[in-house]
């Protein structure tokens, strides 16, 4: 028989993008150590008091590969287990087994749409679009990035350097010539500048990144920037 217990879940409720949100605490029954964060939210929605609207959250493959999910668990984007997406985070890793706080991924670039749902695609996509064409997406795939946005949310500066740097690490080999490389990397860096903050090499991003992308990728931004300057002179 599975041993289950009740967990008190403090969850961010916000009716729409304009509304002011607040934390509401619910007791969720039937939770086991293997329950994942998204399953915990499913249980919560099943047990909501009559009249309460279900808690909305981003959901996808639940296999850690699509990058759609992502909530902040006790202040850590995705959750306490290192380098795992929210759908792969388990209750057993919670700091406190009886209580947990769930809120949306937090970053200026990611507006909250409702409850735990954020619009992270838009901001991330502007950067990929700046690399024009499918090369940007291909570069991210080659890097292993699933565009989950956790790196931005983990960063106290709201920097997307791990995402941008990973893209720039893999972009050059996909370019047909040097002009194209110069042009597109410059566009990517400029676009990222407009939306995201500066990198202070704290490394919080690499603790949460489900793809386990390394700190070295951060430097690709400076490398391409310097390279572009050398060549335009």
């Amino acid at each position, binding site marked *: 028989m599975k041993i289950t217990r009740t967990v008190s879940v403090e969850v961010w409720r916000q009716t729409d993008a304009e509304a002011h949100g607040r934390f509401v605490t619910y007791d969720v029954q039937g939770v086991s150590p293997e329950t994942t964060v998204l399953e915990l939210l499913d249980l919560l929605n099943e047990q909501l008091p009559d009249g309460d609207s279900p808690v909305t959250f981003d959901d996808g493959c639940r296999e850690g590969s699509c990058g759609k999910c992502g909530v902040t668990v006790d202040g*850590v984007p995705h959750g306490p287990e290192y380098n795992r997406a929210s759908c792969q985070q388990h209750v057993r890793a919670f*700091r406190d087994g009886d209580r947990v706080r769930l809120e949306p991924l937090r970053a200026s670039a990611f507006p909250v749409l409702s409850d735990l749902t954020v619009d992270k695609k838009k901001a991330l996509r502007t950067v990929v679009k700046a690399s024009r064409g499918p090369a940007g997406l291909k570069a991210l795939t080659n890097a292993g990035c699933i565009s989950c946005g956790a790196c931005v949310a983990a960063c106290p500066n709201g920097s997307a350097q791990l995402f941008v740097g990973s893209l720039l690490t893999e972009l050059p080999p996909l370019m047909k010539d040097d002009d194209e490389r110069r042009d597109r990397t410059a566009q990517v860096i400029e676009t990222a500048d407009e939306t995201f903050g500066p990198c202070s090499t704290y490394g919080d991003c690499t603790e949460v990144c489900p793809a386990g992308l390394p700190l070295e990728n951060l430097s690709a931004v*400076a490398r391409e920037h310097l390279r572009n300057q050398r060549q335009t002179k």
Partner: protein
Amino acid sequence: MTISDSAGALKTADLKLAMAASGTVFSAFTVAHMAGNLQVYLGRDRFDGYARFLRTMGVPVLPESTVLWVFRSGLLACAVTHVSCASLLTVRAWRAGDRPAGGVRRSRPRGRRRRVWEIAKRSMRSTGVVLGLFTAHHIADLTLGVRPAATEHAKGAAYDNLVRSLQRPQVAGLYLAAMLALAAHTSQGIVQVGNDTGLSGDRRVREALSIAGRVIGTGVALGNASIPLAVQTRLVR
């Protein structure tokens, strides 16, 4: 949501490069400055002789203190660059960070980052401010010799001025606190230089820089910190 500001024409990557360049100058300066400081252990004559050497570099080709002032101007320019770029970047970081609506603060991550270096590396602004204030006091005390930073100050008597200054427990305490800030700031600063110049794209370089930062930061801090301790314990007097 866009975070660009009125200085938006200044690219983040360029501000970072300016900080890396000026920061590297400061790191080199702290090493040289410490090497100079340690001559206090060789006695009054050597130390005062070193102070005289700094003033008379380039003499007789150049007037006295010319070279010294060239160095000072360079350092001042670095300080202005470093602080202004840091301010611009700080504003960008705060704007992009997060400000959830409704006055709710971002929850602090629980169960993460408890090691000393982890705390040091996210304290660049506070350690930077401590270093700036300390430097202002330090110059007023030992270079200019003005009150209230300095008490008794005799021109040209570098050794006596230093010893007399550090005999004051508050000054020795301030000095030690500043050295803690220096160790923290340098260790992360050198990591940051690697990242902002693209050098850290290579894992071995990144790891080497991270070790170098800690070695240089703590090395300079310990070397310097030994002096107020030596004065307080009357080993140097």
